[in-house]
């Protein structure tokens, strides 16, 4: 039980770090990386939390998280393709803005 709690807290702190990365990113890509890591760690956190509370039959939610995280990533990449063909000077300048 103690190990589960420790693992949950470790995952929770990793989530906090990934969130910090997503909140304060140098480039857009770093932000997406933070969001992606946050998503995968959340999946693990839900799984661990289910065992911690003694009802591990709610893993369906973790599966949904994994699915939606992936779809969200693909949507973001697709959005980049649009803005890259649409107005590439503007979109590249915005990423530069965040860079510096």
């Amino acid at each position, binding site marked *: 039980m103690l190990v589960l709690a*420790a693992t949950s807290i470790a995952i929770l702190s990793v989530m906090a*770090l990934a969130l910090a990365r997503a909140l304060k990113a140098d480039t857009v890509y770093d932000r997406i990386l933070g969001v992606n890591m946050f998503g995968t760690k959340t999946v693990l956190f839900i799984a661990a939390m289910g065992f911690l509370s003694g009802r591990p039959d709610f893993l369906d939610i973790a599966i949904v998280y994994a699915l939606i995280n992936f779809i969200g990533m693909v949507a973001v990449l697709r959005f980049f393709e649009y803005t890259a063909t649409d107005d590439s000077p503007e979109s590249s300048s915005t990423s530069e803005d965040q860079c510096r």
Partner: protein
Amino acid sequence: MIIEAASTLFLILGAFFSLTGAVGLFRFPDFFTRVHAASVTDSAATIFIIFGLVLRTDFGLVAVKLLFILIFLLITSPTASHALAKSARHGGLLTLVETEATKKEDSD
């Protein structure tokens, strides 16, 4: 007893790998190394933690669901990292070495 010990070991390893990945997310110098740190540890931590949890079930439906999550994450997470790195490359992001090389060219 052995199963419990193995589960504990797996969970601790998984937690350790996740933490190193998070540190890597901050400490590595350029975006591509950060992707590397994040995605490699992501996969390792997923494998360890899920196996650690599977050992705590009675190997029924819950274990099957956990394995489903594992397979799904092992397929999608590296793909997402790869696609992200690829589009960052297309978007004109440089590695640290390349940035230094361009700086040197500028100063020459």
